[in-house]
């Protein structure tokens, strides 16, 4: 269980809080899509969950334990239970699909083993399995920069899955992909979500995808939650409220 308790983030030099007073409880098995305009705090929120961003106020609790009280070592242990995929995939260039997926096991292994790059049969088997799960077996030895965007994101998913995660975080994982590929990635994420009973939390711009796949939608605006509910409750009204620009807001007020 993941709890955000009054989480706020203010970036150094930022006038406004990027995230202000977010309180949410997310349960295992939920597929949560976070909607909001660029700059609404979606990314910041996702990054708070696995401690890549430290909240200025408030706290994030994982299984009841606050991340802020954890040592670096404990935080690493939490992170390895949370897979993360990114908008720009963040794969390590010049390495193969297989090597990239194997880096997903780094949180579990000793530094020495990682340094010399020795993987045991079980780790290799796991990597092979997740590569098969994302349907890239035929490209396992190919270098990642030679893959298409959708294939790269599948490698990203495989890298996250090999961690045997309980949580899958996605920071706009389909924002640089075409609609067909985006849909494919989402259906893959949903499939893995069900099979592994994950808590999946994905930032997305495409409301259609969110409504199709999510079991819960959270909409952010200027760092605050303005909607939290079932996908069918997210209607045109909520859509307009989420995406209307500040300027339009101003005009309405002047009238």
């Amino acid at each position, binding site marked *: 269980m993941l709890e955000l308790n009054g989480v706020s983030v203010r970036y150094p030099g930022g006038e406004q809080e990027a995230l202000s007073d977010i309180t949410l409880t997310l349960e295992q098995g939920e597929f949560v899509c976070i909607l909001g305009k660029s700059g609404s705090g979606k990314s910041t929120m996702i990054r708070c969950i696995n401690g890549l961003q430290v909240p200025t106020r408030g706290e994030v609790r994982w299984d009841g334990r606050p991340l802020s009280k954890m040592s670096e070592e404990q935080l690493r242990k939490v992170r390895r239970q949370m897979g993360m995929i990114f908008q720009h995939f963040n*794969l*390590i260039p010049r390495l193969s699909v297989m090597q990239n997926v194997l880096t997903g096991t780094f*949180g579990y292994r000793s530094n020495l083993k990682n340094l010399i790059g020795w993987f045991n049969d079980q780790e290799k088997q796991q990597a092979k399995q997740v590569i098969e799960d994302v349907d890239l077996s035929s490209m396992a030895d190919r270098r990642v920069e030679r893959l298409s965007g959708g294939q790269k994101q599948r490698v990203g998913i495989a890298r996250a899955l090999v961690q045997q995660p309980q949580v899958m975080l996605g920071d706009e994982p389909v924002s640089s992909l075409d609609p067909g590929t985006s849909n494919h990635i989402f259906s893959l994420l949903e499939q893995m979500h069900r099979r592994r009973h994950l808590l999946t939390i994905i930032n997305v711009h495409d409301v259609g995808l969110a409504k199709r796949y999510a079991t819960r939608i959270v909409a952010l605006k200027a760092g605050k939650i303005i909607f939290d509910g079932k996908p069918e409750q997210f209607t045109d009204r909520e859509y307009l409220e989420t995406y209307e620009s500040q300027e339009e807001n101003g005009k309405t007020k002047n009238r």
Partner: protein
Amino acid sequence: MWFKRKNLVTVLILCLLLYFSMRLTEFDLSKFRDFRNMIDFLAQWFPMDTSKLPGMISDSLETVGMAFLGSFIGLFFGLPISFIAAWNTSPTKPVYHLSRFALSFMRSIPEIVFGLILLTALGLGPFPAVLAIAFHNIGVLGKLISELVEASDPGPQEAMKAVGSKNWFAHLFSIVPQIWPNVLSHYFYRLEVAIRTSLVLGFIGGGGIGQRLFNDFKTFQYSSVSLDVLIIMVIVIIVDLLGSYVRNRVI
């Protein structure tokens, strides 16, 4: 559209700089009226004297050895230092500033000065030359690679952190594959420079083909000098070819 005041001023400043540089360096093409002297001198270089070729070859191997060892030690220590001298991977601010300062200090001492100092302790020979080249190259490669580290894509590092790996490990593993081809091309360039440096160090008693060139010159054996120069040119070209071959294989 190019005739703006700003551009005119730039050209004016440039012309002034050129003028003063020429004054200071006594740049004067009319001095070439003694051109014949040079021709006479160069004529003494030929035909080449190949009788000392075996000695020259073994001296060149010594030179290549000096350059390789020196620049490799430079890379070996420069690479790890570059990570603490890059703002995005340095453990703390003080360490960052300290390592930057150390690197620029190492660069600021010319190899020849370092070589001259070491000669007093280690005596004549290639060993002090190797150390001089290594010391200078730690500074140069450390600085150049730290700039590559700073320009590397932060995305993979973030992914490695998210996976739960240790910070320094995330840095190492996500950055090195990105910068490796450029590290190699810097390295091979420095190897090439090290060969030329080891020639100069040969002049002060550092051994190798440089010392032979210097001795041949001082004893007026110009027919040997010409062969020395030819061998040096061949070495530099071979290293250059080798460097681009390795780099192409790696990319």
